[in-house]
């Protein structure tokens, strides 16, 4: 059995991380999680049935609302559900033993798992974006044809003006940062769920805690405004709110897409700051995951 010796051990190996990440992606792919993209496509096609009675601005507005809202929900659900099953399942099936009994540091295992999920979310976001753009383009072509039909007796300049109005209301570049922010928020949720799964006893517990934190993260802004705005709020609630704000991200900050769909432009500075905040939270949760996982008795 003359076989090759393995490479000398290195402290951090991108090849090992990539092997774990691609294996995680393959696992989710073969579990057919991408089927939810079909539901997304059907949702967009189905929503078109309700659009006929609106004017074209309202039609595009509705389509963007439905598409980007669905993208936000689907990527969040995917990030929580897919991440929650990874580590508990590896422990339950003892697959984790065979991986960590190889020369694989625990932080590489965690990074590989998270990277696999981030790749899955990236592919899903891109595919959903393409479906969204195609749906928007289809709606635009329909409205353009309707505009042409309704322009009998108009001058060529008037017709061109009407068509330009339709085109301008369809695609705007500001949709791109909105979609990127949906991805960043889902990545943050994945990292948070990964952290919970390092100490949780089951996937169900992980999902429940992750969903609870998601809602706390969305509501904490409202609670902060209410309690801190009141002069009668005592020191204890203020300390509690400060702790909540520190531990849980304010998910409302990442909902830039709502403003974008409403037609408000987002400054590059605000986008960059929010993206950096999302990246920072993702990194912090990964780091804390490692501290918990490194001392975990398997």
């Amino acid at each position: 059995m003359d076989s090759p010796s393995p490479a000398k051990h290195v402290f951090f190996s991108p090849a090992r991380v990539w092997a774990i990440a691609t294996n995680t992606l393959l696992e989710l792919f073969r579990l057919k999680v991408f089927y939810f993209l079909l539901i997304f496509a059907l949702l967009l096609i189905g929503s078109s049935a309700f659009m006929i009675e609106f004017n074209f601005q309202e039609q595009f507005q509705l389509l963007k609302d439905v598409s980007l809202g669905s993208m936000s929900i689907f990527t969040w659900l995917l990030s929580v559900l897919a991440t929650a099953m990874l580590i508990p399942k590896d422990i339950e099936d003892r697959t984790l033993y065979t991986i960590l009994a190889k020369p694989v540091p625990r932080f590489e295992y965690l990074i590989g798992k998270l990277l696999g999920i981030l790749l899955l979310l990236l592919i899903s976001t891109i595919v959903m974006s393409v479906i969204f753009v195609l749906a928007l383009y289809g709606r635009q072509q329909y409205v353009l044809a309707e505009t042409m039909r309704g322009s009998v007796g108009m001058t060529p300049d008037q017709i061109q003006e009407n068509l330009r109005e339709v085109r301008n209301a369809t695609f705007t570049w500001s949709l791109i940062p909105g979609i990127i922010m949906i991805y960043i928020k889902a990545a943050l949720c994945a990292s948070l769920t990964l952290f919970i799964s390092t100490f949780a006893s089951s996937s169900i517990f992980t999902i429940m805690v992750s969903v609870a934190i998601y809602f706390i993260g969305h509501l904490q802004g409202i609670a902060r405004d209410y309690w801190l705005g009141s002069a009668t709020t005592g020191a204890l609630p203020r300390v509690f709110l400060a702790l909540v704000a520190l531990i849980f991200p304010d998910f409302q900050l990442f909902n830039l897409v709502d403003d974008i769909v409403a037609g408000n432009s987002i400054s590059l500075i605000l986008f960059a700051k929010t993206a950096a905040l999302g990246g920072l939270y993702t990194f912090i949760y990964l780091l804390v995951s490692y501290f918990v996982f490194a001392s975990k008795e398997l």
Partner: protein
Amino acid sequence: MSAISIKNLTKVFPIPLRRERIVAVRNLSLDVEPGQVYGLLGPNGSGKSTTMKIVLGLVSPSAGSTHIFGRDSREVESREEVGFLPENPYFYKFLTGVETLHFYGKICGLHGAKLRDRAAELLNLVGLESAADRRLGGYSKGMLQRIGLAQALIQQPRLLVLDEPTAGVDPAGSREIRDLILDFKKRGITVLLCSHLLSQVQEICDRIGILHKGVLVREGQLNDLISIENQTELILEGATPEVLAQIHALLDQSGAHVLAERRPQTTLEKFFLEVTSPKN
């Protein structure tokens, strides 16, 4: 240098929300020499699996230390030399046999043609070439154990740690795994084996240790431990009644006692394999 060196190892598990603590392993010391097949035996809950997990760095010791070829088990580098097959492993059901070996090879630093050749070689060794492209979800228990052995060997380790490698496997599959372990021994691979199948342990182990309630109660060369000092066994073939009578007379004269006289029996395993072999 010992393949495995365990010194004064103690592992205590605290029980959450209670003051009680469970001592899984108590002051255990033993050495496994290179090339040996060492059987770690004991009833359920005796601390065998905990000891294995500490050796593999999956669990940290409360006191004492474990080393693999001189490297502390807590260092990731010590796992360069180890292959591990856990009890009832599932692996990733969505992967095929060959994909499984490629995955484990990649995390051990193998890649390209070397990895492909190594995977093919191991599939051949464990007799799974024809099932290489089938997903593990469709593998039988015996096939899973064999692919488990192959993944344990992927980086050509000098030490194999096997936890109940034949649990739940039919007698034919069990014998194949036993033959593979004997083959590893011939190749100079050290094996630490945990098993409840004592007849199999007796066949393949050079040395054994018996754990009971976390304490090593017996340890030594298998032959030394199980041989009865003042008795001798003779197995004769073709002896006529006259020859037997002469032997008895001689024994009576010498003052030795015949404790038992019977026809040797085959083992139930051999009998079972004989009647279920494809030749019949």
